[in-house]
């Protein structure tokens, strides 16, 4: 998912990244504006996935561009501008997330499987519909899944978004969250299990 931000549209809009970069490094105002217009939509989409508040997401995008422009002289151009900006906006959004007044988190334990004495799950898993993923062609179903992701406890939701949706590695995620690889792996597994619990009523066979 390297080019999460740099879709075809942005690539088309910025025909030659090397030229754009050189112009920005020379202080060309038009080049900075071209960069903002080319990438701000994709960066806003990334920020919205991390921050559920629109105002926070917009502020994170602004923070990201200002940070990027401040460091433009140090950017070597070895990665794509879109990849570079993606990392910066993820950082900016995480900073906003940390600064936001944190609500008490619900415990994730209730959303994880529970086991009886015979070591079987107390609520035995039922098969899911074969068409579960195809259902997401419908906008309503996509909104429902996004809503379930947003219901996850924040500590777990952010790991799931960074790893499964933004495509960051375990190492990158651990570094950004200032934690260990083991913690990231455990939180990701539990986040997926909890999300599975939220989705189960919608996708198990026999449900409408």
């Amino acid at each position, binding site marked *: 998912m390297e080019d999460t931000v740099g*879709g075809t*549209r942005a690539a088309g809009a910025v025909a030659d990244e090397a030229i754009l970069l050189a112009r920005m490094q020379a*202080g060309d105002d038009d080049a*900075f*504006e071209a960069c*903002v*217009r080319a990438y*701000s*939509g*994709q*960066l*806003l*989409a990334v920020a919205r*996935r991390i921050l559920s508040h629109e105002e926070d997401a*917009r502020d994170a*995008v*602004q923070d990201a*561009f*200002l940070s990027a*422009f*401040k460091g433009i002289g140090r950017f070597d151009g070895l990665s794509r501008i879109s990849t570079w900006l993606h990392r910066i906006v993820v950082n900016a959004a995480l900073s906003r997330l940390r600064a936001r007044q944190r609500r008490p988190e619900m415990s994730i334990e209730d959303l994880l*499987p529970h*086991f009886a004495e015979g*070591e*079987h*799950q107390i609520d*035995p*898993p*039922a*098969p*899911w519909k074969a068409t*579960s*993923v195809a259902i*997401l*062609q419908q906008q309503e179903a*996509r909104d429902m*899944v*996004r809503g379930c*992701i947003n219901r996850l406890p924040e500590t777990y939701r952010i790991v*799931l978004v960074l790893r*499964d*949706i933004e495509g960051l590695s375990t190492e990158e995620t651990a570094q950004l969250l200032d934690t260990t690889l083991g913690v990231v*792996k455990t939180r*990701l*597994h539990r986040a*997926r*299990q909890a*999300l*599975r619990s939220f*989705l*189960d009523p919608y*996708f*198990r066979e026999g449900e409408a």
Partner: protein
Amino acid sequence: MNCREFTEFLHEYLFGNLPAAERAEFDKHLAECPWCVAYLDSYRKTIQLEQAAFATAEDAPPPVDAPEELIQAILQARARSS
């Protein structure tokens, strides 16, 4: 292996991170436990659903631009800071 152990480490199994001997234990448990087969399948589908919920459909229009007011705010903030 029991269902608790399977469930605790199924992500390692799913992504091929286990040595052959441990993988064989998981395979043996799956051959005997339809509940864990269902759980593994739904866990795999959960990951696919997460990604599909945010993916851009092939026939979808290009992503919308950021609001003009945001673009202007960024450009003005840059002008102030430079």
